[in-house]
């Protein structure tokens, strides 16, 4: 025991760190901040630590070469003892990290913690969010599979739309004319050196600011932040009703961080590592690229925006969002902190959560994408084929053979790109059906060139029989006019 004391004394004589460390640990924090609402920042830090450790472990075997990366992931998954587990920890760690950082941000926003004097803490936090998302995207690229390959193509296509500089930025992003070895190498450098380096520096700055300025007190309705008096009030609060950070407030942080690490481990064991999906061979075009879950909302936005709004929204949207986040502490640096008196703040969080959730959910089944194999893989429901004439069944064949099923569902199966057709005969009469098939329109291609008159006749004859029981099929409006006028 005495030896340990001696050794630590020897080090402290030289480093002189024990006093500042002890003071930092014991610094008083407002009693009410020892709360489960204040655990997300430390949890994010813990997960970041896990990512650094598992990332280094993966780098021991990963080969950052376009020709070898995919194979080295297979080796990790299947040939190295517990390689799959380290990959799963790193993958699930990244999902948890994005989620926790977002929750931390929402909590900080709702508790008004970005107000004076913690503006810079918020701004650094916004930059940390960007870096976290940057790590998520570059990490997805390092899992160099089909999704990564075509995801890079999407990234390049978006960047190319930047006025004037677009083509240059594409070349810089890809490291050459195409997605290839240089692309993976530069994303490796970003993911392993550049972004983590800045993350570590900015996390340090973020923590320093938290220590210097003190943790945000629990907001009380009616306790107004004023620049002139806040610092004194906060000082008073910690003096009168403060507890030392260690051991007072840190307990919940410790338990929550441990719980999150355990959750990541459980997910890793239960669900296993992410991919890799197919080989990054662009000549394999039978692929349906999908982004990882934290970018699914963006995938949905890109599908649902009207084409003319897409480029402006892609280029200006992020700039506006970033500007709003950075300007927030300057626009509302004083005033009420409690969410109970900030209905717009609460609504903003709710709106953001509902929007992100809805878009992510939509992207999960991607109704805007044609189901590329529905025409050959999904049958036409039997009720549309029973007791039908030869012509109508021929039309059902045309429906399958011409890939109509890829975009139109029948009986709940098939694509959702176009409208479901289970009521089509109720909605369109024969002439309207012919016109729609031949000329297209309303986002449907025109099939005039690719259907013979016989095929069109058969297809329309089939579609005229597709309506729910108990509903009458549409009649030609001109005929009913004629019918009325003759009466």
């Amino acid at each position, binding site marked *: 025991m005495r030896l340990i004391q001696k050794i630590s004394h020897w080090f402290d004589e030289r480093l002189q760190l024990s006093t500042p460390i002890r003071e930092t640990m014991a610094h008083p924090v407002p009693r009410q901040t020892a709360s489960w609402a204040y655990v997300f920042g430390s949890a994010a830090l813990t997960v970041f630590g896990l990512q650094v450790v598992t990332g280094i472990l993966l780098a021991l075997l990963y080969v950052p*070469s*376009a*020709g*070898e990366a995919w194979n080295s992931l297979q080796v990790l998954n299947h040939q190295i003892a517990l390689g799959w587990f380290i990959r799963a920890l790193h993958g699930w760690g990244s999902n948890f990290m994005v989620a926790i950082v977002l929750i931390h941000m929402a909590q900080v926003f709702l508790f008004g913690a970005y107000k004076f004097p913690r503006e810079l803490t918020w701004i650094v936090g916004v930059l940390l969010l960007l870096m976290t998302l940057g790590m998520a995207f570059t990490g997805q690229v390092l899992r160099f599979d089909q999704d990564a*390959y*075509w995801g890079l*193509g*999407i990234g*390049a*296509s978006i*960047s*190319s*739309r*930047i*006025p004037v500089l*677009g*083509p*240059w930025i*594409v*070349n*810089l992003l*890809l*490291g*050459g*004319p*195409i*997605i*290839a*070895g*240089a692309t993976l190498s530069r994303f490796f450098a970003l993911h392993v050196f550049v972004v983590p380096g800045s993350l570590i520096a900015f996390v340090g700055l973020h923590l320093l600011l938290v220590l210097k300025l003190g943790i945000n007190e629990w907001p009380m309705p009616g306790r107004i932040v004023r620049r002139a008096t806040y610092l004194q009030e906060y000082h008073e609060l910690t003096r009168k009703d403060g507890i030392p950070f260690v051991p007072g407030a840190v307990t919940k942080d410790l338990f929550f961080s441990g719980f999150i690490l355990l959750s990541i481990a459980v997910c890793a064991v239960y669900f296993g590592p992410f991919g890799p999906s197919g*080989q*990054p*061979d*662009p*000549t394999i*075009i039978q692929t*349906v*690229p999908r982004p990882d879950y934290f970018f699914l909302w963006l995938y949905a936005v*890109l*599908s649902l*925006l009207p*084409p003319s709004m*897409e480029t402006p929204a892609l280029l200006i949207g992020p700039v506006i969002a970033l500007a709003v986040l950075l300007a927030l502490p300057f626009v509302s640096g004083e005033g009420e902190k409690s969410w109970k008196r900030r209905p717009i703040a609460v609504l903003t969080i709710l709106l953001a959560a509902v929007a992100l959730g809805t878009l992510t959910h939509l992207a999960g089944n991607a109704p*805007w*994408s*044609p189901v*590329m194999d529905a*025409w050959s893989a999904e049958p036409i429901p039997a009720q549309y084929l029973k007791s039908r004439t030869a012509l109508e069944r021929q039309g059902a064949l045309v429906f399958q*053979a*011409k*890939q*109509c099923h*890829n*975009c139109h569902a029948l009986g709940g199966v098939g694509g959702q*790109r176009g409208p479901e057709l289970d009521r089509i005969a109720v909605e369109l009469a024969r002439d309207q059906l012919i016109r729609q098939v031949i000329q297209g329109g309303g*986002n449907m*291609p*025109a099939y005039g*060139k*690719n259907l013979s008159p016989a095929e069109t006749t058969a297809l329309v004859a089939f579609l005229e029989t597709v309506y729910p029981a108990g509903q009458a099929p549409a009649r030609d409006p001109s005929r009913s006019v004629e019918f009325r006028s003759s009466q």
Partner: protein
Amino acid sequence: MTPSDDLSRRRMLVKLGLFFNGAVGVILAVPIVRYLLSPVIRERNGGYESWLALGPVEQFPAGQTRLATYRHPAANPSDGETANIPCWVRNVDGQMFQVFAINCAHLGCPIRWFPQSGLFMCPCHGGVYYEDGSRASGPPERGLFEYRYKVEAGKLLIQAGEMPTVGAPTARLINIPLGRPPCA
């Protein structure tokens, strides 16, 4: 020498030292920036715009659209299979060809050809194109990207260049009028 003289001399020397380091920094920055910009400075890798053979013309029967692949001319050995680029070759009438890039004009996903319905469909956001590459429906704002081609000694050649993107005029694929081959 008075103390204040000494001080101003020291300050002067510090400034000089800073200036010296700044100057060296600039001298170092020039090659570093040049190195970083090498993907966009093109004279070194101009070779990738050379003509590449997709195969004998007989591989592409008249009236059909078929997938062809080529090895990108700027490929390194370490690029592996990523440098094998596919494209769609349409033999319009035995005389004229159209060679489409694999990338959807929306966000670059791989389009697939469906000969039965005569359409190219994109699996990502639902872009659809007609057999001549013109836009049929969905989010793309333009038709498919086309490569320049020529037929020489019974072989179909294309000028591949870069991965085409909407904003990249350097892809040299965009300003070609449809159906009028520049070199045939």
